[in-house]
């Protein structure tokens, strides 16, 4: 029997989900195992079904939550913004009309869509997962092919459980060595994005591999895969291993008993074969990384916290130079300025990138017994009701409150600033979220992206700070 060609993990998942393969003339028809839905990008898709008299093909493969525009204030059940309230009501009506499971405001499972999928055990190795949200790449941490889609495609999946897709290329990001103390998964992915650039991953699925990736917890892997889109990649992937299986075992939607054993047999085959070829490869040394912060207006503009703001004059290409000049002007930074000690007014700990229990533990480890600097506002927004409960059981809410931080209800909050949580013009914030685009956290707001540890250090110092100085 002929030996089959070695295949990458991505190729295995892709081929298993082909309803029909692509040709020169037509894209592939790709089957979707799990469709996650939220209030902002779905109303117009349900409207398409209504206009055409279509039903949701597989409502039981569709799960909805409310996250983007929900208030995070305690006792938040009145949504004051009339437009947000109407959008939430429309999601409720659409889900009830089509028989779709919805974790509405007030439900014990409500939370950010990319936090609740994994914690409920909905996200599983080998799946195809889509959502009308670019950070769907988060679920790739489990060895699923997970990617963000637009609202027209949300309608396609609702109606047919399929998407038309051209096969993306593959990019291996191999991370050697180990992260040093005080350096986290967020620092790692910021370094990857800086290396690749904003479009470096375009048209590709990134598979993260190597000893530094294997050493990451599932929550850290989610942070890495989450920001794959910030390098322009379609998706990020990590081959499942014992850490993955341990995380999933016993989760409400994970297979049980015999089905679990069967699933394990399949899941253990979901690795890239030795000798499998990637279209491109990149190697990074984890041991060389340091706590990192962005200084500009996209996630690729980052530097070690102990570093300095780059000088636009050092760039040859006029468009890049102009872009950096504009970014520094927007951020209120001078070329050559040291980042350490740059004053900030707000710290946001939350978002689908860094709002899970381990993230909150990391932030709390620095804030325990310390105080937030005077005049700094700190928002801690857990990713889900479940994360919130678990954090409260450990007393993390007390740690945050005693330090002078606000302990909020779950949602996307200040990452996207749709729900009233936002920066004022000119305010500088260290945020554990994923985007520092102009105005992202509120018109005129200045965002410095960083890890939960670095964000907590900034909260204490009232300025960009090195968390290693505070680690006991």
């Amino acid at each position: 029997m002929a030996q089959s060609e070695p295949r990458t993990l991505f190729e295995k998942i892709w081929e298993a989900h082909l309803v029909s393969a692509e040709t020169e003339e037509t894209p592939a028809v790709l089957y979707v195992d799990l469709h996650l839905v939220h209030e902002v990008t779905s109303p117009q898709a349900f409207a398409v079904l209504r206009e055409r008299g279509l039903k949701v093909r597989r409502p039981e493969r569709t799960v909805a939550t409310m996250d983007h525009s929900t208030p995070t204030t305690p006792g938040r059940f009145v949504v004051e913004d009339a437009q947000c309230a109407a959008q939430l009501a429309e999601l409720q009506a659409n889900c009830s009309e089509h028989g779709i499971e919805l974790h509405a405001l007030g439900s014990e499972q409500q939370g950010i869509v990319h936090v609740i999928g994994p914690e409920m055990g909905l996200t599983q190795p080998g799946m195809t997962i889509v959502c009308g949200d670019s950070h769907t790449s988060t679920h790739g941490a489990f060895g699923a092919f997970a990617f963000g889609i637009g609202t027209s495609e949300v309608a396609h999946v609702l109606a047919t459980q399929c998407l038309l897709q051209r096969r993306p290329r593959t990019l291996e990001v191999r991370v050697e060595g180990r992260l040093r103390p005080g350096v986290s998964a967020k620092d790692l992915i910021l370094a990857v994005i800086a290396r690749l650039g904003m479009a470096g991953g375009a048209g590709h699925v990134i598979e993260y591999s190597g000893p530094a990736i294997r050493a990451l917890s599932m929550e850290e892997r989610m942070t890495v895969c989450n920001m794959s889109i910030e390098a322009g990649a379609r998706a990020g992937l990590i081959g499942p291993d014992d850490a993955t299986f341990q995380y999933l075992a016993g989760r409400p939607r994970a297979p049980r008993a015999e089905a679990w054993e069967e699933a394990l047999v399949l899941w253990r085959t979901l690795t890239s074969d030795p000798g499998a070829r990637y279209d491109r490869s990149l190697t990074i040394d984890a041991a060389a990384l340091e706590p990192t912060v962005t200084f500009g207006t996209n996630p690729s503009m980052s530097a070690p916290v102990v570093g300095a703001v780059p000088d636009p004059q050092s760039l040859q290409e006029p468009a890049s130079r102009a872009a950096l000049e504009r970014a520094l002007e927007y951020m209120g930074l001078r070329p050559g300025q040291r980042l350490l000690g740059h004053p900030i007014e707000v710290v946001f700990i939350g978002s689908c990138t860094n709002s899970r229990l381990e993230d909150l533990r990391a932030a709390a480890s620095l804030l325990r017994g310390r105080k937030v600097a005077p005049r700094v506002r700190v928002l801690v927004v857990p990713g889900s009701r479940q994360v919130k409960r678990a954090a409260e059981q450990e007393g993390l809410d007390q740690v945050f409150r005693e330090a002078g931080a606000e302990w909020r209800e779950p949602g996307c909050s200040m990452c996207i600033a749709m729900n009233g949580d936002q920066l004022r013009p000119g305010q500088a914030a260290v945020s554990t979220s994923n985007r520092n685009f102009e105005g992202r956290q509120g018109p005129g707001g200045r965002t410095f992206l960083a890890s939960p540890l670095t964000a907590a250090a900034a909260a204490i110092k009232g300025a960009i700070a090195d968390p290693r100085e505070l680690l006991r």
Partner: protein
Amino acid sequence: MEPFKTLESRTVVVARPDIDTDQIIPARFLKGTTRTGLGKHLFAGWPDFPRDEGARVLVAGPNFGCGSSREHAAWALVDYGFRAVVSSSIADIFRANALKNGLLPVAVDEAMHRRLVARPGARVIIDLAQRTLELEGARVTFAIDPFARRCLLEGTDELGFLLAQQNAIAAHEKERAC
């Protein structure tokens, strides 16, 4: 959807690289439940956006449309009046969204891109059947997925094609017991 054949228009130029969808339409304008009326919020955070309501072609810096998957970005551009976006590269999700809304994403070579950026308001002719863009007598060919091109030329959408695959989809579900 109206078929897209040829387009002749003057351009609007925004030369910045990596223009993300938060710039094209900020999140505070995503609270609606319809896809109409978003043109008035296009580049809402940019007082210096060169407004030209008669222009149908937007020329932008590389990696246009990166970031969020919000289709509102394509809806806002179309509602404003644009029918094509030209750059040296266009982000994946935005490109897919644009194609579904009759907004043609055109990636040209860097030499042509430089010429377009240097001439705001210049007239261009885009011929989708020929896959060409012409500026002041100079013509370049651009790549576009053949299926997307056919959908645009015919004014049809992908959903019809997918709905016609129901039998194959059902067979796949049966075979994989899903």
